[in-house]
């Protein structure tokens, strides 16, 4: 019998902090223990349990790409007890991390195909992970299209990277703001994500679509994709549910008999349709 405590986190140091919006932050994290740092690996789409000692644990995806293994990044919005405590931290502080948990995006199956990324709001975090994964191996994929939308200009996350993606000639990036959320010198699109996807009209043939964002955005984007000819098994999304253990034990993240923490968080639309509407 191996005596390893599955609930005990590894210690990580906050090495960089980026203020994405007024309430959203990105942490760059490094393992304090050299050996753990060396043996740690993950795949795009997996998540972890981040903790502030004395406050508790919170679940976020790993927002950095597995192709950049010297650190991990996470983005979070200040919303509850743990995220408020995380927001108080500065560079050099220590947090706890457990992971990686869950399944991942089928990057290998996507090779040789076109990739369409659609994200809304903070939903860009898990997509950013796989965007960089794809961009770091750019030659192995065909056309790459990114459609990202937020409620208003101040809600856009990863602004520097959005600019970088826009400037790159080998990908097509469309950023949109909800009507009324734009600023005077806004040069992107104005409109809701589903409408913009319809306007961009990416071709469905040999294409995998990855869609992450608020449920309402996903709900209206999927019919658009289906109209464009995307098959259900080529539309991939992630489910988020409240989690505590991340290990398939604590009993709260299940949708029907699917544990989001172990069987997910990545699901195809074909799989999602089979689940009871309880997410």
């Amino acid at each position, binding site marked *: *019998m*191996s*005596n*390893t*405590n*599955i*609930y*005990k*986190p590894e*210690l990580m140091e906050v090495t960089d902090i980026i203020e994405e919006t007024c309430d959203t932050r990105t942490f760059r994290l490094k393992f*304090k223990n050299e050996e753990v740092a060396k043996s740690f690996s993950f795949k795009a789409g997996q998540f972890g349990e981040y*903790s502030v*000692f*004395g*406050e*508790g*644990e919170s679940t976020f995806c790993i927002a950095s790409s597995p192709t950049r293994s010297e650190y991990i990044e996470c983005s979070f*919005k200040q*919303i*509850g007890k743990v*995220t408020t405590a995380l927001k108080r931290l500065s560079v*050099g*502080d*220590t947090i*706890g991390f457990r992971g990686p948990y869950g399944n991942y995006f089928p990057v290998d199956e996507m090779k040789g195909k076109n990739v369409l990324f659609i994200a809304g709001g903070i939903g860009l975090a898990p997509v950013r992970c796989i965007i960089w994964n794809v961009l770091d191996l750019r030659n192995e994929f065909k056309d790459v299209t990114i459609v990202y939308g937020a409620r208003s200009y101040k809600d856009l996350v990863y602004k520097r990277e959005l600019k970088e993606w826009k400037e790159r000639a080998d990908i097509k990036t469309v950023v949109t703001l909800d009507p009324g959320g734009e600023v005077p010198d806004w040069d992107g699109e104005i409109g809701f994500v589903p409408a913009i996807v319809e306007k961009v009209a990416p071709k469905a043939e040999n294409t995998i679509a990855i869609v992450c964002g608020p*449920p309402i955005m996903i709900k209206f984007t999927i019919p658009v994709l289906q109209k464009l000819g995307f098959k259900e098994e080529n539309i991939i999304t992630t489910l*988020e*549910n*409240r989690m*505590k*253990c991340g*290990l*398939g*034990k*604590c*009993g*709260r*993240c*299940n*949708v*029907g*008999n699917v544990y989001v923490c*172990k069987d997910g968080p990545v699901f195809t639309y074909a799989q999602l349709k089979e689940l*009871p*509407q*309880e*997410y």
Partner: protein
Amino acid sequence: MEEKIISKENLISFVNDLIKDNHFVVGQDEKAVGWKNIIDAKELRINHGGVPSNISYKEFIFAKTEPIFYFKNKKDDYDLVEKKHDNRKIIFIGAKPCDARSIEIMSKVFNWDYKDEFFNERADNSIVIGTACNYQDEFCFCTSVGLDPTTEKGSDIFLIPLDENNFGFRIVSERGKEFIQPYQKYLNDGNTAHSTEILSKIKNPEKKFESSKVKEWITNNFEHKLFDKIGETCLGCGQCAFACPVCHCFDIVDEECDYSCGRRMKNWDACQFSLFTLHGSGHNPRDNQGKRYRQRIAHKFKYYPDKFDEILCTGCGRCSRGCPVGIDIAAVATEIFNIERSEISLTK
């Protein structure tokens, strides 16, 4: 299987020996509320003929609350300290079949892929001395979930009340056989035919429902108004989950002692609580009590059997006996089949 006999005096001496040998002995308390650590064999109560305790003994395997590690702050760093391991044997005496099975059932969820050492350490060290059950009331339904009052399933040793002064003492598992070696002197040779005859006189409670049919019904009627109706009655107090021998949901929270140290705790939780699945955004996938009750029933009769091939219920009836508003899980499972025919009655 070996058949022995133990007299009441010998049983008391046996238990005193166990305590002397530094084993952690757990028996039912005097008022049949719950289970406790027995420190003198005189406190021992073999409750084969009485109502099951209000609370099962799962807390001795899956603790109500326990630290998973301690943290200590030192300047820019933290020390994480793990708890000391306790390798004492935990001996449950007088477990009815509906309790005896609980460890095996819960062990599935605590061991798929990731292994919970807190559960396993205690489960591996446990010895279950079960007893045949001579009690039944309108809430019992063990026969509906694949158990019966005389089954040895889950027990390492099985006691059968033979007469005023003697118990049949069946050594059921290898683990039980090994464990009993030092205490052979208290045992006399038994007669299997005699104890089997006694067991055959125990009447099985009536089978109230077919659990596979409950599963099928939930699959096809996930959105049924039945659940809304139960939701209107249910208070969401979580009594059912805490009394249940196999409910295993838990929470992880931090407790601070002062600014520099604290501990992370694993606590019992229940799917009937409204905050259980509440997202940070305010969204709640199970946003009314009906959905939460549906989760409870579906988890027990559909999700767990689908995933682990085991019904997450032993039919002890504690959730129904203790429910402050009288929701009876067996009545719900039974009424499912009467729905088309008549007005639903959910309580007894």
